[in-house]
């Protein structure tokens, strides 16, 4: 980061600061509502084998104005969706006439440690489940309710609510044991180039974080802040929808949200952020 910082400082000076006016204050620290401390910078997890020395939340790379919006829940537009999620948490649905709260009680307690460990292996189903998949498993198997659409409306609201109560807990996704095969598949996808531009996730988010690509300030592409409220489309955005956008931008045929490939990639990318705080819903541009 030192190098990147220095580099943008030099460029900014050379350009009279113009093209970099929107670049972030990379040394700022994130405290939400004046009390909730968020870890936005941590030593890279051992399983990265030195590919990164330090991991950074995407928040670090955003402009001052965008950063500030996430420092107070009244200014964070993502919190409106959290409220909808909270209402849904307490609403009975499906043939069993049950709500999430009927089984799990107060989410602030029962869900506090959940976001940080997903995606996670499920022994009974013998599959890696994203948080969204687990939400749907509860709905269809416990409540007799319909599955919600991946990465859309009510699903993102619920995911945002569960993330919000976990804010500040440290991401700690398991990469070994039964999850290892999916994790390895995700790692392979992360380093595989796609599309006519022939780029991998690593080209942009490992080799070039901190650099500008046209007018975009590249982050490490971490997902500890998801779902994110993006100023660009003024709504909550899911992890796999974001992956899809990045793959599309390499001029490639994308995978679909919910596909085994994106589940594996979500597990892998989440694990690259082990050590950072859960931060969702975050604010990004």
């Amino acid at each position, binding site marked *: 980061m030192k190098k990147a910082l220095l580099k943008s400082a030099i460029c900014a000076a050379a350009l009279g600061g113009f093209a970099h006016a929107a670049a972030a204050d990379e040394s700022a620290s994130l405290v939400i509502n004046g009390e909730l401390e968020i870890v936005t910078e941590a030593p890279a997890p051992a399983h990265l084998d030195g590919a990164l020395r330090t991991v950074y939340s995407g928040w670090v790379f955003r402009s001052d104005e965008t950063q500030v919006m996430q420092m107070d829940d009244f200014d964070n537009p993502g919190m409106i969706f959290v409220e909808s999620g909270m209402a849904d948490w307490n609403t009975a649905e499906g043939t069993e006439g049950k709500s999430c709260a009927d089984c799990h009680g107060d989410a602030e307690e029962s869900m506090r440690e959940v976001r940080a460990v997903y995606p996670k292996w499920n022994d009974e189903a013998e599959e890696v489940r994203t948080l969204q998949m687990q939400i749907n498993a509860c709905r269809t198997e416990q409540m007799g309710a319909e599955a919600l659409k991946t990465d859309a409306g009510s699903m993102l609201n619920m995911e945002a609510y569960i993330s919000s109560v976990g804010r500040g807990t440290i991401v700690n996704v398991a990469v070994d044991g039964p999850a290892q095969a999916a994790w390895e598949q995700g790692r392979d996808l992360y380093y595989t180039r796609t599309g006519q531009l022939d780029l991998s996730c690593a080209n942009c988010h490992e080799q070039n974080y901190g650099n500008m690509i*046209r007018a975009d300030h590249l982050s490490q592409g971490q997902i500890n802040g998801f779902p994110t409220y993006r100023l660009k489309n003024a709504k909550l955005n899911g992890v796999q929808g974001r992956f899809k956008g990045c793959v*599309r931008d390499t*001029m490639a*045929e*994308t995978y679909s949200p919910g596909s085994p490939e994106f589940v594996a990639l979500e597990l892998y990318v989440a694990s690259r952020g082990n050590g950072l705080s859960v931060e969702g819903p975050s604010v990004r541009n």
Partner: protein
Amino acid sequence: MKRIIQLAAGIALSAGAAAAEVAPGDVVFGEYGEVVESLTGVAGDPEAGRAVMNKGSGNCVACHQVTELEEVYPFHGEVGPSLDYVGERWTEADLRGIVVNAKNVFPDTMMPAFYKVDGFNRLGDGFTGKAKEGPATPLLTAQQIEDVIAYLMTLQ
């Protein structure tokens, strides 16, 4: 993005009729990845090349700084080196080789190949996210490559 691609495709079609072009599969590379022969036999137009640096499938400034372009296209990237004085550092043949397929010159580079139509993984149809039906269209036409080279040669 979509609009930009349509524009590029339009240019590709109108240029397709030109005579005696070297097809992407027929480009002859030298030992270091350089390409000695012009792709079209028509001298490049540096002004047209200057526009390709910014627009459409060229978009070189997404990754490269060029002092001469800063006023017209203020937002440039930092992924590749500055192209200032690139016409002094490299010969025309080298530059043609780099733009046609930079991986022949810099193995593992992030710079895309601008005149290549095969060997892609999950080739998409522009920026739609859908699979491409049929053969790929190179990112730049043969003449656009020649124009960009002519522009780069002015950076001395």
